[in-house]
């Protein structure tokens, strides 16, 4: 049994082949990173896994079940994601954002909610407790009641990580967790990623550019260029792979 596997995944937009024949496997409990120059198709792979675009070929297997349907089915399987450019609910507080992360665990019916029956209150209190654990872990207590619209970029990035954590996922997809962060914030992010993997036992699949962060947290790395796989292995192996150097620096640098 494999934890998460992508087989021969491909997508084309008109004449542009964005991703072609990508296959990889993520083992339970590891941090698996996808790297590659701009336009390599990294985020597109995330969007394919999230079922935001339908793939033209290949399939995605999570715990030996095929991932298909609409984006909300992906979340229900226990796969949560963050976005490269932050997609938070701007006109809601940090607390509300994290509570929306609890959505897949909500089971109260509309009628119960309209009357706010004791069952709804009890469920809300337990969701709140779960969210507070995330707030504690990520040090967000200070911002709990702030509107997201007024928060600095670095904090938003953490809120997004928190929202994904609040869903209690088995697999987390992080799309460039360190983009737009200063070195200090990147350092915090590296600690959190390591904590999430080790202490919460959540498997992480991430796209990242910061090679320092990649080598600190990743178990294995996959390098892509122009939608194709060029190398896979430990961070050091991939970094010294000739095809990777060529993709980043051009052929002449060899």
């Amino acid at each position, binding site marked *: 049994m494999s934890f998460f596997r992508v087989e021969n995944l491909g997508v084309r937009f008109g004449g542009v082949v964005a991703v072609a024949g990508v296959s990889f496997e993520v083992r339970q409990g590891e941090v698996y990173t996808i790297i590659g120059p701009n336009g390599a198709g990294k985020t597109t792979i995330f969007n394919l896994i999230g079922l935001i675009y339908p793939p033209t070929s290949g399939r995605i297997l999570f715990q030996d079940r095929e991932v298909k349907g*609409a984006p909300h089915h992906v979340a229900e399987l226990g796969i949560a994601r963050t976005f490269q450019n932050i*997609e938070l*609910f701007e006109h809601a507080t940090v607390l509300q954002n994290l509570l929306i992360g609890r959505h897949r665990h909500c089971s109260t019916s509309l009628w119960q909610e309209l009357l706010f029956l004791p069952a709804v209150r009890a469920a809300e209190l337990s969701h*709140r407790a779960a969210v507070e654990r995330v707030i504690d872990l990520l040090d967000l207590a200070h911002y709990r009641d702030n509107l997201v619209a007024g928060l600095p970029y670095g904090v938003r990035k953490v809120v997004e990580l928190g929202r994904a954590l609040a869903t209690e996922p088995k697999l987390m997809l992080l799309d460039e967790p360190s983009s737009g962060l200063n070195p200090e914030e990147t350092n915090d992010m590296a600690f959190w990623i390591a904590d999430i993997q080790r202490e919460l036992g959540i498997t992480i699949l991430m796209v990242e550019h910061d090679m320092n962060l990649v080598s600190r947290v990743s178990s294995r790395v996959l390098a892509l260029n122009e939608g194709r796989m060029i190398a896979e292995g430990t961070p050091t192996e991939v970094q010294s792979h000739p095809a990777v150097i060529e993709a980043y620096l051009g052929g002449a640098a060899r």
Partner: protein
Amino acid sequence: MRFIFKTDYDQDIRLFQHGGQVFWYGLLVALLIAAPFLVSEYVLSQLHFVCIYSIVGLGLMLLVGYTGQISLGHAAFLAVGAYTEALLQSKGMPFFVSIISAALLSAAVGVIVGLPALRLKGIYLAIATLAFNVIVEEIVTRWESVTGGNQGKHLKAIELFGFRLVGDASFYYLCLALTALSCLALVNLLRSPTGRAFVAIRDSEISASCMGINLAKYKTMSFALSAALTGVGGALYAHKVAFITPEQFTLLTSIELVTIVIIGGIGSLHGAVLGAAFIIVLPQLISIGKDWLPAAVASQSGLQSIVFGLVLIAFIIFEPLGLYGRWLKIRSYFQLFPFYRAGTFRRQKSYMRSERLR
């Protein structure tokens, strides 16, 4: 300034956050209950309209303010509610049955209108709902055997538990009770997972769906709930005016309903009620103002529409948060005195967001 010391998660989800709210809302309810004894018959009659428009405003607020789906066709739901009520009453149904049927039928129509909303956004959705309004208006005019066409339809006084609701006060209490119930139901909904899902859809559909929110289900639900409340409002409206014709449910009515939401303040339930009150009071102000204007201006027939339009534009430009937003600003001015600054409520420009995927 009030500082609330929180020691329990329950404090964030209870109905009233502090004693001050209990006091002021209690006072408001007491005044509203005492209103028939305090105000003239004419003012009471206007209060009927405020209640009815509040219910409709709350319904539209849920859809526009909280779910972020625009509708320029809500007068159609009003019509469905009003005609269902008129028809069932003429068939001798008790009021309970007829008003619940009005709500359910409107909700069912709301689901049908909600379906294109799964694919349409923004201006396209506005046009689709606008077209829906025109269609319903046409059906109501042509389907004479049921609606009476342009001849209109008369309604009798409501009978409740064997009592005829004659007189303004009893009808007022009925409207007031339904308004209070609608408010309470929406407050409850908005502090529950469904309400949060609506807000999530409003702010970012893509990430809402990645959090496991079924967009199709929640958008349709929002349309249905919104239409149901509007249907209830329509049924009460039919009784209030006692005679309904298709001209009461035109596109202009829809725009008037959207005006309630915008003037009141998008994204607040208070706003829906304040907007409803404003839209009832404004025509009175205009007629008072007419005395001060030169005769050539005051006698123009389009004066009211012009003033409405200007007020709407002024709100969009100068106070996008609406009446409720203005009230919040005034309140914090006094709470923070003398430290209030003009920028307190200004929102930062939002950052670049992921490319819109659909």
